[in-house]
């Protein structure tokens, strides 16, 4: 491990974060809410820390091999998560440092789990910072770094692959920096479109902006205690549902359609399954909820569709307390947390394409029992899937379940009751946000034990970076030269 290069890159990211921390400052001054010293102090600290690291490591372009790649991505996220927590703690809005770090990580990993009991009590500048953590974490801090930090250019594909969700990473352009810029361009464009539509729905610019940030990142932080349900508007629900769905699509597809490379891109197999899973989940919820939760069909469709898309894309907004829904609906929502959105989207979970590959692999295994001498390959979009990718998916599945199991056991050992422990862990590894039991859509994570919050914070990072990247750092050989 080249520690010098590592420190240099982390320093650059830290300076960059210092800049981002200044963004809510004008709002703070405008509102006169008194958080400006916290924001300025955090920004100054981050910038000073980064500058110090850059100075200490001297000049020259850092050489990043794939080993440094894992470390840069994982530690980069840790740096963002920890430094991003400073405004919450310094301003005194959040009682403990662990809580602040939990909130910050929940933001950057686009989980949307909150320890705030009264969100509306926070000053607007801090709420904006909360939404910003989502928005920056959504497309990925490294992808963002690739787009604007020239020093990350070398070995960029390693970093890109380590951060972009899904079994394989699409390259939109031969130069990785251009790919990163294109993805961010699409992301910014879609966010702007949603802000426009929400403004039309009667939201003020602050609510529109914060909710668009949280939607496109599939995060789930709202500015209201009752989440999106607070607006009580079918139009807002519909717009948010649509953009959550779009955010769960592969951004390479958005790019293909927007650049006029046509609807052919939409023949993508993963997209079709993603659409199918979404529609299927909505259908099951509508049927299950018709029984006793919503007598009227349109109401039923509005709330069921919103919640299905919100959970499947791992956004975690709520317009209804689904803990009052029939058990079947609740279990289905938990299962959707495992699936997540498409590869190359901003969502969490295992990703639709991985679930598809697992299912196809299972079919091939059964088929091989019937045809012992048969040769059959798992295919995606009509093309055979390389054995290495398939192995990766199987390994990912095992580690994912392992993480959920170990996490749930750990939470239970801290005295959390079983439904809450298991569902909270599933929700955090999948970067969803709300879960069941004590951490349902109407509750928050504040009452969990401190160690439990720390554990969940780690699990959120594990889930966002898709496990491998983080675990690679746990091998001593990754650190040896």
């Amino acid at each position: 491990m080249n520690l010098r290069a590592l420190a240099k890159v982390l320093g650059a990211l830290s300076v960059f974060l210092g800049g981002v921390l200044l963004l809510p400052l004008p709002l703070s001054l405008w509102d006169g809410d008194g958080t400006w010293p916290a924001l300025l102090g955090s920004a100054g600290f981050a910038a000073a820390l980064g500058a110090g690291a850059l100075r200490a490591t001297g000049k020259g372009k850092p050489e990043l091999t794939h080993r440094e790649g894992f470390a840069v991505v994982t530690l980069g996220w840790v740096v963002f998560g920890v430094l991003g927590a400073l405004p919450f703690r310094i301003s005194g809005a959040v009682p403990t440092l662990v809580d602040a770090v939990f909130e910050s990580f929940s933001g950057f990993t686009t989980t949307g789990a909150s320890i705030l009991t009264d969100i509306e009590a926070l000053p607007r500048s801090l709420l904006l910072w909360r939404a910003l953590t989502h928005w920056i974490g959504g497309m990925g801090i490294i992808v963002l770094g690739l787009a604007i930090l020239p020093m990350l250019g070398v070995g960029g594909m390693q970093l890109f692959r380590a951060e972009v969700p899904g079994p394989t990473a699409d390259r939109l352009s031969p130069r990785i920096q251009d790919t990163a810029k294109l993805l961010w361009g699409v992301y910014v464009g879609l966010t702007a479109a949603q802000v426009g539509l929400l403004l039309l729905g009667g939201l003020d610019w602050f609510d529109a902006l914060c909710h668009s940030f949280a939607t496109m990142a599939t995060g789930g932080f709202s500015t209201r205690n009752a989440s999106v349900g607070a607006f009580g508007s079918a139009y807002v629900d519909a717009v948010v549902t649509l953009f959550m769905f779009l955010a769960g699509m592969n951004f390479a597809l958005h790019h293909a359609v927007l650049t006029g490379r046509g609807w052919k891109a939409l023949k993508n197999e993963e997209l079709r399954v993603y659409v199918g899973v979404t529609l299927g989940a909505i259908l099951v919820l509508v049927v299950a909820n018709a029984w006793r939760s919503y007598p009227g069909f349109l109401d039923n469709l509005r709330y069921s569709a919103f919640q299905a898309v919100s959970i499947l894309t791992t956004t975690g907004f709520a317009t209804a307390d689904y803990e009052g829904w029939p058990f079947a609906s609740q279990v289905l929502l938990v299962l959707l947390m495992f699936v997540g959105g498409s590869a190359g989207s901003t969502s969490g979970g295992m990703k639709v394409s991985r679930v598809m590959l697992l299912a196809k692999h299972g079919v091939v295994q059964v088929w091989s029992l019937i045809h012992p001498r048969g040769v059959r390959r798992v295919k995606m979009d009509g093309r055979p899937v390389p054995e290495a990718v398939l192995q990766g998916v199987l390994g990912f599945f095992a580690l994912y379940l392992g993480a959920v199991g170990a996490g749930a056991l750990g939470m239970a050992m801290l005295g959390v009751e079983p439904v809450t422990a298991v569902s909270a862990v599933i929700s955090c590894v999948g970067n969803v946000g709300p879960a069941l039991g004590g951490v349902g859509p109407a509750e928050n994570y504040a009452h969990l034990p401190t160690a439990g919050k720390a554990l969940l914070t780690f699990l959120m990072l594990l889930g966002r970076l898709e496990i491998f990247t983080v675990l690679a750092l746990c091998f001593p050989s990754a650190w040896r030269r």
Partner: protein
Amino acid sequence: MRAIVVGAGEVGFHIAERLSQEGHDVVLVESHRNRVRMVEERLNVLALEGSGAQAETLEQAGIRGCSLFIAVTDVDEVNLVACLLAREYRVPTKIARVKSIGYTGQRAVLNAEKLGIELLINPLEAVAQDLINISRHVAALEVAEFADGRIFFVGYPVADTNPVCGLSLAELRELQGMYPFLVAAITRGTQTIIPRGDDVIEAGDHVFLVMRTTDLPSVRYLFGFEKREVRRVFVLGGGPVGFRVAEHFEQAGLDVRVVEADRTVCESLADRLGRSVVLHADPTDVATLLAEGLAQADVVVAATDREETNILASLLARRHGARRALCLVDRPAYVSLVPTLGLDACISPRLSTASAILKYVRRGGILNMATIEENQAEVLEVRIPDKPAWLGTPLKALAFPAGAIVGAVVRGDDAFIPSGDTVLTPGDRVVVFALPDAVVRVEDFVGAP
């Protein structure tokens, strides 16, 4: 007409033989001395030693007065270069054999048109197409379609269980009121004849029928062939031919199983095929194939690159209950052996390629052509020209060449089987069955160029 054939391999040899039999001047260019000598001994053609891709050799072969140029060496690039040279000498018709799909596939970047070569023929494509045609039709030995698919030519084997076995043609003719078809030829042993009323159909014969495509089911019924559709196809050997055949039947929605002994080839097949079952097994490993349902196979196509394996595998398949077995065999000695073994049909890449080339050469007055039974006879579709001398004469009074018979007439949208009283009119398209020595006379008779 002067024709130059480059490459005296099996295809080249065969084409040269056919063309010279029909009275053309043929010059064969071949680079191996032994082959040149063999050609000189066995064929009535001029054999030249040299490379067909060199202008000097071609000049020696008399390319300036040549009207047909066929390059069929084993090397694609030599064939292409030879044809490009021929183009410089303004030879009107140039034909090249290429094995690479890169030139003949639908998305070929450098196709026949761009190369300025009239016909690029892919032997594997040709043989795959023949296999597909024959497997589609239950019990058929040979099939060919004419007049845009409205007229059907088919060869059937006759067994003693067959209802028509033992009937004379005159007796059969009484049934023809119901089922209009014409018995164009009978092959008995190695002899092909054009039958008359008193000829009797015997067990072991191969009969060749011309009929309207719409009458096919009833004729099949008359001959006692079950109506069962082809559902399960076994393809033995996953080479280019096997792949094409499997791909075709997969697209037709059949249950296809491909057997291939090489693991890497299997994997590549599994990548390219969709629903088909790819089996990694030896084509002669009967126990494994039976476990995969060989006994219920409607058609077994043996298309490995080893002819002996093909023969053995198809024999085994028949023995264990497969309903039909088609076999890819190229060596002339084996081709004549196959009918005696009880296999349903054998396809030879050499013959498939040669007949595809001959079919192209004969175009002009002749619209379509098929060769049958190791090229013992040809079926031609010809257009009656504007003013033949014999206009207005009914068929029975016509001095039609001996060894040839008019099998069907297509007039406008109407297709029918002619009787002796039928009068041909200009613009008619007729399907003629002709023995080899009668082909040229038929061409002369109808006035084809």
